[in-house]
């Protein structure tokens, strides 16, 4: 796979029996947040989502390898400035992903009218919606840890029969502790997920998922467990003769035997007018509040000392953006300048001692990002992380790319 990935662009093997494709992508962005923890504002210039993606296939695509290397460990070691984001010890910063973001091998076969696949390696479990890096906004949704399960040692079986696809994953429950951290392989199989997806008409995807995740935030496995639900509908058909995409998703995670319940609703849409894309995202998501590290208001205490949180906050976000494709007409280099603005509010949700008005010295936030997405390679903007085997094969039934 590494040898294949090292090839400069697209190489086809003899007789078309094997192929390999490689691409790179990254976003140079300047982001401003009007309000930070403990008050004040902040602007940062960062390189986010620098990735190298590679695909390889052989035996008529019966054998496939999908990989993504992520270099955020070096470009955003302290996280991406993203008010409301959280997870893996970061708060109001989007945490860097692991270097080996995904490395999956899939075998695909056919039986009767159905297609079967088995995929294994490190990557996404079959749960929820596509990764935010594959979607519209630069800003990662607050619900990233409610709507996706990623960077696990995972084994996924899938079957696609007519308009219905079913997937089942076994994986390790623990989330990464830092970008170079490998999954705790000894915990492989302690968690599972199932996803059912239907394609009733061209352009429409309906999805429902469930996951049982053991101790995601305590690597040794002694933390609280999660039960996760997710449902979504996605529509990709032209509107007024122009490509149109819309997604609505609901997610709920219950933790600590139901003591903590976090809900999320998100809706987003884009409309492509030639090379110009207009997009909008609405989100209302609850997140846990944890004790912060002394002198580091954007980091929470790790490892956990106990199973308590400080409370729950509810974040409401409206994000609007416009981007334009440059150099897209058949070339291998693509540029997408964009501007994106967000209006965010926060409130306490239920009881708890965390008071967002005190912590942020206010409850309203504005955000503005200017940036340029740079892609190198024909699949720089079409590679969808987390889709393996049959899940990759259904892309023809929906729009293949809504990437930022």
């Amino acid at each position, binding site marked *: 796979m590494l040898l294949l990935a090292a090839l400069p662009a697209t190489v086809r093997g003899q007789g078309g029996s094997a192929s390999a494709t490689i691409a790179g992508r990254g976003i140079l962005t300047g982001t401003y947040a009007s309000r930070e923890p*403990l008050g004040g504002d902040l602007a940062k210039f960062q390189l986010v989502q620098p990735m190298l993606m590679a695909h390889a296939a052989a035996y008529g695509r019966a054998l496939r390898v999908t990989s993504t290397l992520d270099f955020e460990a070096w470009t955003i070691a302290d996280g991406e400035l993203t008010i409301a984001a959280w997870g893996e010890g970061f708060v109001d910063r989007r945490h860097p992903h692991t270097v080996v973001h995904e490395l999956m091998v899939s075998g695909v076969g056919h039986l009767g009218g159905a297609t079967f696949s088995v995929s294994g390696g490190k990557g996404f479990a079959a749960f929820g919606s596509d990764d935010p890096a594959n979607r519209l906004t630069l800003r990662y949704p607050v619900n990233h840890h409610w709507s996706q399960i990623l960077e696990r040692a995972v084994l996924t079986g899938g079957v696609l029969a007519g308009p219905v696809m079913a997937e089942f994953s076994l994986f390790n429950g623990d989330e990464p502790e830092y970008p170079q951290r490998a999954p705790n392989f000894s915990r492989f199989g302690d968690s599972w997920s199932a996803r059912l997806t239907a394609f009733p008409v061209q352009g429409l995807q309906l999805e429902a998922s469930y996951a049982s995740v053991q101790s995601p935030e*305590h690597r*040794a496995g*002694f933390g*609280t467990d999660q039960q996760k639900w997710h449902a979504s509908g996605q529509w990709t058909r032209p509107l007024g003769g122009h490509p149109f995409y819309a997604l609505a998703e609901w997610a709920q995670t219950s*933790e*600590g*035997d139901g*003591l*903590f319940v976090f809900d999320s609703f998100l809706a987003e849409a884009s409309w492509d007018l030639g090379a110009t894309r207009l997009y909008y995202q609405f989100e209302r998501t609850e997140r846990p509040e944890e*004790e*912060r*590290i*002394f*002198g580091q208001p954007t980091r929470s*205490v790790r*490892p*956990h*000392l*106990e*199973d*308590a*949180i*400080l*409370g*729950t906050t509810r974040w409401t976000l409206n994000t609007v953006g416009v981007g334009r494709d440059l150099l897209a007409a058949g070339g291998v280099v693509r540029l997408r300048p964009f501007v994106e603005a967000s209006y965010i509010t926060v409130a306490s949700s*239920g*009881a*708890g*001692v965390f*008071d967002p008005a*005190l*912590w942020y010295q206010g409850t309203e936030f504005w955000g503005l990002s200017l940036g340029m997405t740079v892609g190198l390679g024909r699949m720089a903007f079409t590679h969808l992380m987390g889709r393996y085997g049959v899940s990759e094969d259904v892309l023809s039934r929906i729009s293949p790319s809504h990437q930022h």
Partner: protein
Amino acid sequence: MMRLHGGLRPALATAMLLLLASCGGSDNAGPTPIPPVGISLTSTVTVPANYGLHDTFVRDGLAFLCVWDEGVYIYDVGNGVAGGSIDAPTLVGSVKTVNGNAHNAWWYHSPLGSKRYLFVGEEGAGSVGSSSSGSIHVVDVSNLAAPVEVGSYTLAGAGTHNFWVDEVNEILYAAYYNGGVVALDISGTLPANMASRELARIQPGGAGNTYVWGVMQYQGGDIFASDMLSGFWRLRYAAGAFSVVGGGNNVPERFTSDLWVQNGYGYTGGWGNRGTQPGNAVKIWQVGAAAPVLVDSVITSGITTVSDVQVSADGKLLVFSAENGPNAGLHVYSLVPSPSRPVFLARYLVSQGLHTATVETIAGRTYVFAARNPANPALLTFEITSLIP
């Protein structure tokens, strides 16, 4: 008056007393890289990181280590039953209590001499200030090498935290976070379901304003309670019911953590951040009157939480553990000449922080049994005898 400590060399502590006493309102910020003179590490007992060691109860030369999902480890630290010593603790036995999350313990010695029961607190999941979970587990330690759980008490909608046992009257007082304070009858042979042994309970701050961290009986009489939300309370249990004697709603700027009452004074710690105010204070209260009266505070820079507070049995040392910050670790103050005006003696910094510190005298020497936090949790035993004024 508020006083602060910093990096004074312990050997000069006595000479600096007057100077320290005049330091009101100032803050000596940041850690000072001085050796912890007067505090010597005598032994380290590592425990699994699940989540690690939370509290240690020491009695008769036995240390009961509450090791979260590993349950309770019993170590011989000078009893002799397993050939252990303070320098080389030896494991005697262990028990995994139901649901794990073993947080604290009390080895009960009854008035009739029975030493059968160990009470273990389970600290379950919760949202600080509003919800909690976890039961009190009753463990039969008649055979120290093979303890066995024989009963439990569960309060619906709330979870337990620290205990105090009135051994003369055979009553266990349990801090119960949002459940307030609960009194249990622990006389005689205890049933598997301890629900029938509940004597009384109280939410001193009222619903929505109660989240009790700790309780302590003072001189066999009133019960003092530290409430994270509503501060320091004086309660009374009589005729099968609790009543409020005084106090409460007296620490609005911080979350209150642990407590200790001795020498006519109460000492309460702080926890986490209340808004942006860290819990870096030990507040000193005069408890002679009906309601505790705040007389002083010791502020420690470079910490977020005072996680445990205790006064040595002779009343001469105030010891507290601290977490989350460059000055996390063990801090020792002198209560001589005045228990209302602690004088800094020494500290031992532990970068992970110490979750609890239990002061105990063994063979005439004074030790602190401290719980080092993950990622490499352990019981650290310190000798502080030389610090006693």
